[in-house]
């Protein structure tokens, strides 16, 4: 081998080692309402079709059209689908934010941009690919009115070429996205091809980012948490739904309407086995849910923080009068109107004790789309089993973003309607039956429903005795409240158990819930790889806490409670139940800037608290505020 050949080979090897395959994030900055969602979904799905684990997160304004929006797609061969803090590849389509978008990138990042923006003048340490979008869209979209929408599909074509995504898979993804709209498919396919061909003819690949075929997504689905929860509700046999539109929960009920119209209409009569009502507000929504469940229907509502606040009074009635209710809280950033289109886990304490007096509620914490589906079903069973409201604590990140998941499996168990009195049971109990009488010692009474022909009772939010009669007697009040407590204690063993990963070598235990799961898992890997710090992990799935929590705390020296709120709400709830020496071990990792939590932030925070030197990383993007409607 000649020295020259050797040098070339070394060069190639060096080049190859610099390639970053299936492990980077793409951010697309566009204008809200410009049709970019279709282009982004096609890109996301085409990566999935390449067999590469992928996730998509939409960071959008509270606005219909005109304000900046960012979509982040993360490809991860390791299967990390939490948010990645760094942006590796930027598509800058929005003139308003382009400058800041480019200035906040890490050196070495790649930028596809609209040529007239002249972004290449801003920095010399990035790789730029200028694209004349307007010139490219004209020939493929003769109708000038549609160009604004079709234009975005061109960047998909550009990326397909630059990243090595199979164009035919991208076309397949396009077909999936636009469905039966043949004209739109043809038009957009033309734009894809125009982008692809332009990049092929114009650019020499300079960045290291590549998508290569893997086999990690076979059979996998892409779905938003809200749609997943809706499927769960349908499979749980929900019959009455009352809701009021509010971001980020609206799409839960809207998906449900779509699915129910397709799968829950009697084929012979054309009549619905459900009633869905858009109520006048969240108060009425919960009122309808309570009325329906009192009359025996499986009923639910979905809302966000502001709606939860409004539901306070009715939540107390449902707790005290003991009517089931399933309430999805797709959490967004508060307080007040807050950041309506950004994510948080800030409603825990509010939901746990919603309403005046001594009130406490059951909560479920799905962390994945799959759990959104399964816990929706569990929520209905628990609500009827315990005759009480159950809050399913989702968040915007889970509810509105697209997640890759295994396909959902069909439920294997029938629904559990709890203690409904039957004529046989009434015979057995005889005179000992009372609506609020604890005949089994678990705090859960038997109920009848209107129209069932069994003994009627008067339901009220005022003081009542075991027979449901009005009472202001101190002993009746105490007896009833103590029974409600007993019922709550019974629930500990019935709410979903935590997912625990115990590491005998670990002195540190992580406690997280909901969507913090992904960043938490990735952070544990970072800690192990970067500093050899071992951790155990307790993922909370239900409230009230099971027995496992105390044992996990005892088994570790320091517990980091990872949450997406300012006030360490879960940690506060834990403090109410843990012993003083256990409480001393608790520390917080808090993330509350409206963006989904990321692994780097957790790792750096934990290391700092553990006494390591941590370099200050880039500032948080998207500092530019956006004004808009509700």
């Amino acid at each position, binding site marked *: 081998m000649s020295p020259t050949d050797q040098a070339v080979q070394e060069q190639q090897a060096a080049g190859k080692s610099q390639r970053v395959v299936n492990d980077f994030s793409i951010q697309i900055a566009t204008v809200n309402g410009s049709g970019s969602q279709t282009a982004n979904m096609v890109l996301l799905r085409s990566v999935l079709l390449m067999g590469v684990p992928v996730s998509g997160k939409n960071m959008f304004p509270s606005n219909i059209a005109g304000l900046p929006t960012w979509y982040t797609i993360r490809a991860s061969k390791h299967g990390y689908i939490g948010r990645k803090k760094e942006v590796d590849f930027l598509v800058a389509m929005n003139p308003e934010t382009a400058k800041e978008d480019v200035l906040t990138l890490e050196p070495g990042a790649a930028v596809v941009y609209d040529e007239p923006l002249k972004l290449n003048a801003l920095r010399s340490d990035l790789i730029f690919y200028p694209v004349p979008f307007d010139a490219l869209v004209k020939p493929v979209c003769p109708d000038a009115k549609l160009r604004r929408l079709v234009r975005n599909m061109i960047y998909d074509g550009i990326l397909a070429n630059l990243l090595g995504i199979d164009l035919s898979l991208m076309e397949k993804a396009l077909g999936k996205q636009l469905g039966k709209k043949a004209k739109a498919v043809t038009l957009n396919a033309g734009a894809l091809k125009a982008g692809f061909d332009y990049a092929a003819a114009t650019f020499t690949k300079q960045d290291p980012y590549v998508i290569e075929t893997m086999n990690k997504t076979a059979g996998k689905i892409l779905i938003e948490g809200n749609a997943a929860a809706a499927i769960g509700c349908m499979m749980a046999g929900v019959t009455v739904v*009352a809701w009021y539109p509010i971001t980020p929960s609206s799409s839960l009920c809207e998906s449900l309407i779509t699915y129910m119209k397709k799968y829950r209409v009697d084929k012979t009569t054309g009549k619905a086995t459900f009633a869905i009502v858009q109520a006048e507000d969240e108060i009425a929504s919960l009122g309808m849910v309570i009325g329906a469940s009192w009359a025996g229907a499986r009923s639910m509502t979905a809302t966000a923080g502001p709606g939860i606040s409004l539901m306070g009074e009715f939540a107390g009635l449902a707790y005290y009068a003991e009517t089931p209710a399933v309430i999805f809280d797709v959490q967004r950033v508060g307080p007040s109107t807050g950041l309506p289109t950004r994510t948080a886990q800030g409603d825990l304490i509010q939901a746990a004790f919603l309403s005046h007096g001594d009130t406490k509620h059951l909560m479920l914490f799905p962390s994945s789309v799959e759990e959104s589906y399964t816990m929706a079903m569990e929520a209905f069973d628990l609500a009827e089993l315990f005759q009480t409201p159950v809050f399913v604590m989702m968040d915007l990140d889970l509810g509105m973003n697209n997640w890759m998941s295994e396909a959902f499996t069909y439920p294997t168990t029938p629904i559990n309607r709890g203690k409904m009195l039957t004529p046989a049971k009434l015979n057995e109990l005889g005179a000992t039956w009372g609506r609020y009488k604890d005949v089994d010692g678990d705090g859960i009474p038997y109920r009848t429903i209107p129209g069932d022909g069994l003994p009627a009772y008067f339901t009220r939010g005022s003081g009542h005795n075991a027979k449901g009669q009005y009472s202001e007697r101190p002993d009746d009040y105490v007896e009833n409240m103590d029974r409600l407590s007993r019922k709550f204690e019974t629930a500990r063993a019935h709410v979903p158990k935590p997912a625990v990963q115990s590491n005998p070598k670990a002195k540190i235990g992580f406690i997280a819930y909901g969507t913090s799961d992904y960043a938490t898992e990735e952070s544990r890997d970072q800690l192990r790889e970067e500093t050899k710090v071992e951790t155990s992990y307790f993922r909370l799935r239900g409230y009230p806490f099971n027995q496992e929590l105390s044992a996990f705390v005892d088994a570790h020296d320091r517990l980091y409670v990872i949450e997406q709120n300012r006030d360490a709400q879960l940690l506060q709830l834990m403090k109410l139940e843990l012993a003083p020496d256990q409480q001393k071990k608790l520390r917080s990792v808090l993330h509350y800037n409206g963006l989904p939590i990321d692994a780097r932030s957790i790792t750096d925070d934990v290391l700092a608290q553990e006494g390591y030197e941590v370099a200050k990383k880039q500032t948080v993007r998207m500092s530019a505020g956006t004004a808009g409607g509700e």
Partner: protein
Amino acid sequence: MTTPIKVNRIGLEPQVYKGGKTTLCAGCGHNAISERIIDAFYEMGVNPAQVIKLSGIGCSSKSPAYFLGSSHGFNAVHGRMPSVGTGAMLANHKLIAIGVSGDGDTGAIGIGQFVHLMRRNLPIIYIIEDNGCYGLTKGQFSPTADLGSKLKTGVVNDLPPIDTCALAVELGATFVGRSFSGDKKQLLSLLKAALAHRGTVMLDVISPCVTFNDHEGSTKSYAYAKDHDDPVEDMTFVPFFEDISVDYAPGSAQEVTMHDGSKLILKKLEEDYDATDKIGALKRLHETARRGEFATGLIYIEPDRDDFLTQLNVVDEPLATLPLERVRPGKEALEEIMEGLR
């Protein structure tokens, strides 16, 4: 010799329709309304096991405990009974719902839910026991108190009243009536007709508060109500199960056929009144109010409009008790959904 026990057309004794002993003040108009409800449900032969009683908060809202003791009842939260009633009827549209509210429960805290209940035309009999004041908190004015009406303490109301009947007509209720707790015949006819109607029935019943609002200067006192009651027609209700013919000269009465086949004969009084004319109904309400009187009787009726549950096109059986196989789609449905997401 024992006297035969009196029963109604479904073989139930009057006793079955009674409720618990009232805890309201002696002479309270609300008690008289409870009695008329008992009479109407007994005489119409309604099965109490199919009835749900609903209420909000206040003196009025306590009253469902004092009638139909063998029916399910739900004393909800202040001003929010309409939503609870709506949910219950969605769950089981075979139920017969009667809601009792008050003028504060409806006109103040509950005005929002009242408005939307009227719009939806949910099958429910919604009664406002209207005394123009908050009795349970000792006599403050409510939003139906008339301009210039005086409290016992001498405080004069200087805000115009909300006319719940005009509001209900405007919003789309399909059966709107007003009566006076002291007018046994008219109130009973209205309640029986209400049971024959499918849709929202809104009945505003002037029901004097003997403790806080029955003095001179009050426009919701017994004396004032008796003197200022202006019936719009002379009403005769003929239930579908009774073969009675009512004679009236041609052109002197309006005959309305109800949802269940019952008939309402509305005999004209001194002026012509057409209870199916929405604009005429609103005009009459405003005119009598301007005279300081209140129009009573069947103010407005639209017997044929689809009710909310019909619009929702739900299956014939109650949703509440549909078996699992009808509410959980099959495995192939889930597989189809999953395939669409790949």
